[in-house]
């Protein structure tokens, strides 16, 4: 389980980011806390976390172009 600081403007967008992150391959589970501006990601065993997070960022940008994840 790893935590990342994020920047997202609206609560609904945060929910969309959470949905999108969960669908990225290599991600076991994910939670986005809008109020804390944080995202916690649980990875599948043995994946390259840095690479998965790049995909996560891409997926999130698709649903919410304004968002930022501080890797």
């Amino acid at each position: 389980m790893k935590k990342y600081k994020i920047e997202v403007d609206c609560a609904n967008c945060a929910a969309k980011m959470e949905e999108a992150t969960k669908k990225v391959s290599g991600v076991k589970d994910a939670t986005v806390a809008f109020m804390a501006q944080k995202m916690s990601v649980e990875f599948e065993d043995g994946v390259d976390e840095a690479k998965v997070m790049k995909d996560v960022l891409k997926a999130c940008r698709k649903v919410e172009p304004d968002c930022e994840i501080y890797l």
Partner: protein
Amino acid sequence: MTRKQKKVLIRVIISAILVVGLRITFQFADVNKYIELVCYLVPYFIIGYDILKKAVLGIFHGEVFDENFLMAIATVGAIALGEYVEGTAVMLFYQIGELFQSYAVGKSRRNISELMDIRPDYANIYEGDELVQVDPDDVEIGTVIVVKPGEKVPIDGEVIEGTSTLNTSALTGESLPREAKAGDEVISGCVNMSGVLKIKTTKPFGDSTVSKILELVENSSMKKSHSENFITRFAKYYTPAVCIGALALAVLPPVINIIIGNPAAWSKWVIRALTTLVISCPCALVISIPLSFFGGIGGASAKGILVKGSNYLEILSQTKYLVCDKTGTLTKGVFQVTEIKPAEKYTEAELLKLAACAENYSNHPISKNLKEAYGGDIDPADVPESGIEEVAGHGIIARVSGKEVACGNIKLMKKLGVSYFTPDKTGTEVHVAVDGVYAGYILISDIVKPTAAKMVSELKANGVEHVVMLTGDAKKVADSVADELGIDIVKSELLPADKVAEVEKLISEKGEKEKLAFVGDGINDAPVLSRADIGIAMGGLGSDAAIEAADVVLMDDDPAKIATAMKISRKTLRIVHQNIVFALVVKFACLGFGAIGFLNMWWAIFSDVGVMILAVLNATRALKFKE
């Protein structure tokens, strides 16, 4: 305001001025419709370009039905139908609503971090002879740090030099100063009030109390409550459903009109459909629910109550059974003289002095309590050690100032043939006889915390139906404490394993919706804490075990905080429910009226932005809690 917010504000102001200006101008000047359109498009694009961009991008990315799409369709549609002012105004008010929301959220986030203003910025360490400020993260275990008056203790450690008083109010919510001197353990987050302290660190910064607390509060919004999950799921189906409904409203009635031979009236139905789209935006719900929980958790932490997740705040509000441990939770767990009952011819002070003198050489805990209560010095010449006779299992007979003082339990009195008083309270009895004549008794017992009774009555006033006390103590002692506090169920003489069994029994007996909370000191009762629906640990300050095991941590050991936590949780949930009901009722009512044409676009704007602003303002109430 952040830069982003300021930018939006400027756009709002410019386009608002333009719209009002244009409206007034066109009132007097009769111009071509297309010139009017082009003029209104200027403020429309100034205020709405980012929404339009997001809506288009969303369609390409397969995210069709979101609020950007709703707003883009509604406003473009309105403008296409010649409703220029309304179309631009919808976008304008939508942006004002978004701006307000982002400002309110940012403000409560800042408020909460101010409440939790315990993060130390630096630590003072010696480099050679010079004192330098470094990042607390870089300080290794065993380093000597210096904390000056007014500074926060940055890292947990042991005082090696200096004396001072520490203010723990940032951690506990109570401004009760603590003394610190060489040899004392101190925890990070306290503020040094008077003297300079040299502290040898015992933990890295990351494992220090202050880091743990901050991490806990920051992560609390990751654990989402049922209400939050419900709203997220709701929004996921609701928005597409509304879009499809609006489409049907725009197309079906005109088509039916055509079939039955009436005029189609396209523009009338399209406007109604667009109105329902504006009304339907789910923002009020989606933002105000997490904001309420965040506020509740923040407000609780300001009172020294750490709640590890929104879900726990929710469960807390549904608690019907509160099970608590006796020793350390309801009572202080420290034995003290609680009653002195002298016989005739003696005063309380004389009786206490006699007992303290007789017990002068004993190391029994009871003797210590007696000497502590007496407090004065005892001249060893008055009590020659040679005159002490210990009667095993009974007590002590000593010569004090030439008199024979017998000090012990009832058995000793019986053995000496002395008649005695029978105390009506429970505790350890110390009877005293002087030269074979009864002098009175002293009662030593665990004292009940002063706020324990208040806690029980306040819990009952706040929805808790049963307060249960579990203890390993004797039935007589347990019953008397329960009586004093007004506790209705008592289980005494339990072994630690029995406590888990009792809690399990209660859980199986209670209803599904009735939640059970357990309160303990977090040290011996980790299994029970985790078995209960919600585990509350007391005295979290300085006890890592308690912080780990529990769902709710009370930083100090004041039982009244349990009632406070319960009240905060109930207030938060009340706000959450108010917002859900208020937003849904207004939205559905407006949707209905909008669909049959009773509401124009302006009402639609109110029911979207107005409801959201009211819900957010209501949510921020959760942050403030007054007793």
